Each structure stands twice: as structure tokens, then as C-alpha cells.
């Protein structure tokens, strides 16, 4: 069977959605961050697939940027998490509800 653009796109979407579900369902903040990475991965896949389709490799640049942003985001996110852990001794998302009215 010819593996076409469709398959790649559907796969990318599936990855994204799985990551989304995981983000909402899990309580462990670390795993939530990892699911974020999954979502970003799905996006990247979409870009690369389209880039291949259109024969224009400028799309790869965006993916590169994505990598960098993801790295930055993880760094900061984990730093914050560590800080919270030091103070609250928990990484449970449900315990971190000081935004409540």
C-alpha cells in the first residue's frame, strides 16, 4: 500500500490527540509535561510531511525552531516544578490549586 501524505497526517493528528488526552488525564505534573512534548511532536510531524509534499524544505526550519522552543520550555517548566516541589513536597496537579477563587 502506498504510504501517502494522508497516513502521515493522520498519524500526526493521532499523536497530538493522544498527548492531549494524556495531559488532561494525568495528575503527575512531570508526566503532563511529557505529554506536552508528545503534542509538539505531533505538530512537527505534520510540518515535515507537508514539507515533503510541497517539496519545500523551509518547513524544516519551523521544526527546528520548535525543537528549540520545546527545550526552553522544558527547562523552565522543570525548574518551576522543582521549586514547587521544594515548597509543597508534591507534584500532584490537583494539590496545586491556589488559583481557586
Amino acid at each position: 500500500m502506498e504510504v501517502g501524505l494522508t497516513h502521515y497526517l493522520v498519524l500526526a493528528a493521532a499523536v497530538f490527540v493522544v498527548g492531549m488526552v494524556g495531559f488532561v488525564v494525568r495528575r503527575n505534573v512531570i508526566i503532563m509535561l511529557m505529554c506536552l512534548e508528545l503534542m509538539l511532536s505531533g505538530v512537527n510531524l505534520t510540518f515535515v510531511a507537508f514539507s515533503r509534499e510541497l517539496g519545500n524544505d523551509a518547513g524544516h526550519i519551523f521544526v527546528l525552531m520548535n525543537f528549540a522552543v520545546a527545550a526552553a520550555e522544558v527547562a523552565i517548566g522543570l525548574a518551576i516544578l522543582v521549586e514547587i516541589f521544594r515548597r509543597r513536597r508534591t507534584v500532584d496537579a490537583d494539590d496545586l490549586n491556589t488559583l481557586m477563587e
Partner: protein
Amino acid sequence: MVTSRSAVMAACWLILAFLGSAGLYASLQAPFLAVMQVLVYAGAIMVLFMFVIMMLEGPVMPAEARRPRPWMLLGAVIPAGVILAMVIWTIKGVSLPAFPQNLPEGFGQPLSMAHHLLGPYLLAFELISIVLLVAILGALALGKSERSKPWK
């Protein structure tokens, strides 16, 4: 990965996912990206994750002791399913041509990347450097250990 109980296992699965992604990129004629994926994501980011996981509570977090309640799962899965369905619907609705057989010369090669980065997308390149710089600074600032009393 999404369903694993232990954070460490989740991390391992994620590494596997990234490696898979790298392979996919390769199959899509993006060798540069494939390599970068492995280096950056699997190499740096996941290592960072591992660090933090180990540092904090250990492999199994007691926080996840309870399984997510069914209605929570359903509540999350259903909209997700809807989104997926919409995407598939849209894609199926449009007849996408197959991948073209001929690709430009040097497609996806580092040289081509360089031409882009130092060419039309120079601004993006510079900006992303700044982003990374800021991230470093932020992480440093946050990571300083303070003698702060745990606040409950």
C-alpha cells in the same frame, strides 16, 4: 507512555516515541531533522526529565495511586476523539496527491538548512537564540537553592 504508572517508564516510552519520530523524519527525506531530533529531544530533553524524576520522588509517585475515574477518562477521550474525527474527515474530504517523486536537489540536507537559516529566516534564527538565552537565565534563577521553609 500516557498510561504508564511509573514516571520513569513513561520517560522511557517517550524516548522510544522520539526515536520513532526520528525514523519518520528520515523516511520523509529530512535527515538533518532526524539527527537533530535524536540529539536534542532524546538526548538533552529526556535526560533533563530523567534528572528531575530521579531527584524528586522516585520512580513511582504516590500521587498516581488512584486510577483516573472512568468519567474523567471519558470526558477527555470524547472531545479528543471528536477532534481526531474532524481531522480525518477533513483529510479524507480533500484528495491529497501522492508524494512527488522528484525532490529538489539537496532537499533536507544541512546545506539547505543553512541556506534557509542564514538567508530568509535569519530573524527567526536570531530570535530563537535569544529565547534559549532567556531560558538558561530563567532556569538558573529558578534553580538556585534557597533556604526556604516548606510552605504547606
